[in-house]
């Protein structure tokens, strides 16, 4: 049975799709039109009660939150595709650490930039230039730390 991934082909659903491809897992995408607000409709809220994408359905099993989904598939298909979780408990701990860094330090300013620079204009919402500048500065600081980490 093929994994169904609900959501558009950008943003958090893409995180799941990249993982499934790395692990050589077949999937099917089911589009959810965020611009039209489909994720807030009663039908979708039955699948994901917080009204956000993605959600997956794997037979009877439903799971949401992209970073929970990728952890699940990386573990479930340990034996195939790319090893994504480290070999020891300590290596797994470091994977979890940098997943959390991505979620709490990297994602928020990126999200602000994308919403203001990309989606705002599409929806006719004026861009918040202060938020853009602050987010730009924040992400630069985070990437400085990443740069140093990768050099080491």
């Amino acid at each position: 049975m093929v994994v169904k991934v609900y959501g558009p082909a950008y943003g958090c659903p893409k995180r799941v799709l990249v993982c499934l491809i790395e692990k050589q897992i077949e999937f099917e995408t089911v589009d959810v039109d965020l611009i039209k607000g489909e994720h807030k409709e009663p039908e979708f809220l039955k699948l994901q009660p917080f009204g956000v994408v993605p959600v997956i359905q794997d037979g009877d099993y439903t799971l949401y939150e992209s970073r929970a989904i990728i952890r699940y598939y990386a573990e479930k298909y340990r034996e195939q595709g790319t090893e994504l979780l480290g070999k020891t408990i300590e290596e797994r701990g470091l994977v979890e650490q940098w997943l959390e860094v991505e979620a709490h330090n990297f994602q928020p300013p990126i999200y602000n930039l994308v919403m203001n620079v990309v989606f705002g204009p599409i929806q006719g919402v004026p861009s918040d230039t202060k938020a853009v500048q602050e987010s730009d500065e924040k992400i630069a600081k985070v990437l400085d730390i990443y740069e140093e980490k990768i050099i080491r």
Partner: protein
Amino acid sequence: MVVKVYGPRTAACPQRVLACLLEKGVDFEIVHVDLDHGEQKQPHFLLKQPFGQVPVVEDGDFRLFESRAIIRYYAAKHAESGPNLLGTTLEERAMVDQWLEVEAHNFNDLCFTLMLQLVILPKMGQPGDLALAHSSEQKLEKVLDVYDKRLSESAYLAGDTFTLADLSHLPGIDHLIEDAKMGHLITQRTNVNAWWQKIASRPAWIKLKNLIH
């Protein structure tokens, strides 16, 4: 060797780690970090945690930061002792991760905004943004409505037993009730309230509350 936990015992994120270590019976030592005076942004601390945040743990040569990574690590490392905080099957583990992510992305930011505007800024002598606090409260009401429905179907967030998903909420909800005086968010919801009473009366949490005061 005793696990060193860097951070003030009064802050939510270190408390998340301490609660987990107490549940699993892991000995620890708290190394205070003075957030009020910006110690977390000092060079000596940035060597341990380059983003300038608490907590960090040092376990012999192994260093780890991000509270939700630390609790996952210790819950896995000590799977055989104390309560099972990660579920038994892969699918159960994924539900724990799902609700941990819900806490991190749907609950935590709203909880933190309320604490910042209603408690932390005023304590620093600055006015909080009451309009922002109010809109955060309204959003948090909607989130907790979803929790209430979930907890009408399930004894704990991820299933039948207490897991990291429930534990992760302890510090934030405690702060909301004790410091931000937002207890009505919990008590007005039958299932959320019953769940809160259960998890807040766990011996490990009570031990931590005694440690804090």
